[in-house]
Each structure stands twice: as structure tokens, then as C-alpha cells.
């Protein structure tokens, strides 16, 4: 494939994606008054993250078992209000150790 065509593809991808991201930010400068819309926007991050995490997390690692252990560790630590970085690191470490144990056994 020619470099020119690849550059066109890249420009179309990046252009469309950027427009989607920038237009609401630039065009929407008023404060929203409707309680429904305000509540809706308040819940959006939680809903999106929930939908993105499950079930995708179960196929994020090499084995279902290690993903489950990592998820469990993350939930327990988050329940005790640990920060983002500690939870993320502990979850990764849990996956690493679990997969290592699985190979040993």
C-alpha cells in the first residue's frame, strides 16, 4: 500500500475521532440546568466504566483464573479505598503471581 494512501487513512481516522471529541467541548459552554440531564451526566462515567470492565476484564490476561484473582484483589483494595495506582499495581502483581503459581503447580 502506498504511503500516501496510508496517510489518508490516518488523517480520516484521526480527523473523525478528534471532531467527535472536540465539538461538544467547544460548542457546549453553557451550564446545563435540567436535573435529569445533570444526573445523567453525573452517572455516565460510572456506567461506562462498569460496562467496559465487565466482561472485558475476564479476557484481559492469559487465563481466566488469573484475571479473576486480579479482579478480586482490585475489588477488595478499592473497597478499602486504596488509590488508583496501588489498586492497579496490586491487580497486576496478583495476575503475575497467579500465573507463576499456575505454571509451578
Amino acid at each position: 500500500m502506498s504511503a500516501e494512501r496510508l496517510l489518508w487513512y490516518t488523517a480520516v481516522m484521526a480527523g473523525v475521532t478528534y471532531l467527535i471529541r472536540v465539538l461538544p467541548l467547544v460548542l457546549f459552554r453553557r451550564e446545563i440546568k435540567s436535573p435529569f440531564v445533570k444526573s445523567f451526566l453525573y452517572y455516565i462515567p460510572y456506567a461506562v466504566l462498569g460496562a467496559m470492565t465487565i466482561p472485558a476484564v475476564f479476557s484481559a490476561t492469559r487465563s481466566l483464573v488469573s484475571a479473576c484473582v486480579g479482579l478480586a484483589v482490585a475489588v477488595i483494595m478499592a473497597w478499602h479505598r486504596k488509590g488508583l495506582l496501588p489498586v492497579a499495581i496490586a491487580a497486576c502483581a496478583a495476575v503475575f503471581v497467579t500465573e507463576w503459581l499456575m505454571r509451578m503447580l
Partner: protein
Amino acid sequence: MNAAERRQAFKTGFFDGLPIGLGYISVSFTFGMMAVEKGMPAWAAILISFTNLTSAGQFAGLDVIAASGSMIEMALVQLVINLRYALMSLSWSQRLGPEFNLIKRMIIAYADTDEVFAVSSARAVGGKRLRFIYMVGLMIMPVIGWTGGTVIGALASAILPDAVRSALGLAIYGMFIAIIVPPARDHRSVAVVVLSAVAASCLFHFAPVLKRLSTGFVIIICGIGASALGAWLFPVPEPDCKPPDLEERSAHEC
């Protein structure tokens, strides 16, 4: 904001972005590897990652390129898969500090990814507004991680051992959990919204026919559905629109 506060806000942003960047490496690594396997030169894969900064859209774009699809098809695929970012930008537009002019809005728009949005949202509660300097700090590691991961994947897919890549795969999700679990523990409303979104997302993943929908679509539908349900069942009390515990938790950090 004085200089010390600005430095602090920048640092907070930078460290919030660290787990995102780490998590991105494993995903963008895969993207770089796949792109090269499909016959794309490494520079193109790296350029796509740097300019797009999105996962699902890029993987779908790869398929369109491999099939020599038309530019219209490419534009439509990106529109559908990435439409969720419009929701997130809209939500951001309600939480920005007073310093956000056109240029600053255009800068943060570039880094509007699911993860950056989520983390910044967790900081903009309790009437707090997002600061530009915090956002700049927050953007750094995700951009480096995403682009850098693609570089590694495209140039030398054998560098990271499998076991490390597998473990890094959970970084992003660990972070998501850290964001949603504490407020869900404290507020039945948030718990209901999260659980309905999870239930809907599982339905779309496993049910026949429904599972053919693209990931981007599923996230849009689940996000809109569960949030609308929450807004209908539990309208957030005026005037502050945010639960008190988060306010307390983030007040001294950001």
C-alpha cells in the same frame, strides 16, 4: 492558583495518568504488533496511535485498511465506534474551570479517552472544577504509554515477556475498579447504575445476535441506558450534584 498549587495539581495529574499509561502499553503493544503483521510499516502504526489515541477505533481501522476499504467506510466506522467520546466531552464541558478557553478545550479534547475521562471525572466532584494544569499532567503518561507501546510492539514484539504483558493487561481494569467501587459502596444509586451497566454489557457480550454489535456501540448503549435509569430513579440532589464523601476524599488531593 499560586505556583505551588499549580505544581501540586500538575503532579496529581501526572500520577493519576501513570496507571493509565502503564495499562495502555500492553494494549497499544498489541496494536503495533498486529499492524506490522498485517503488512503496515511501523511508522504508520506509530503515527496512527499518536494521532488517534483510542483502542477500539484503531483496531477497527486496521481491518478497514487491511481490506483496502473506502475513506467513507473508514469515517463511518470511526464515527460509530468513537461516538461515546462525544458523551464524555459533553460531561467534561460541565466540569471545566474558568480558565478553559477555546485553545485549552481543543488541547484536552485530544486526550479524551475512556480512562482519562474516568479518572478526571473522579477528581471533578463536590463542585470542584477541572483545572487545565491538572489535565496537562494527566495527559502525559497516557500519550507516552499509548504511542510508546505501539513503537515497542511494531519494532520488537519480543521485548516484553508474555507474563509481564499478561499482567499489565489488568492495570486499566484495576484502575476502573478503584474508581467505581468506593462510590458504589457508599451510594446505592451509583451501585445500581454500575450493576445495570455491567448486566447490560454482559447481555450484549453473550446473547446471540446482540453479541455481533461492536464494542463501541455496546458501551454507548450500556452507558446511556444505565445512566438514564439512574437519573430517572435517583435524580442527584440539587444544587451540588455530587455525593459528600467524594467531595471530602478529593478536596485535599486536587
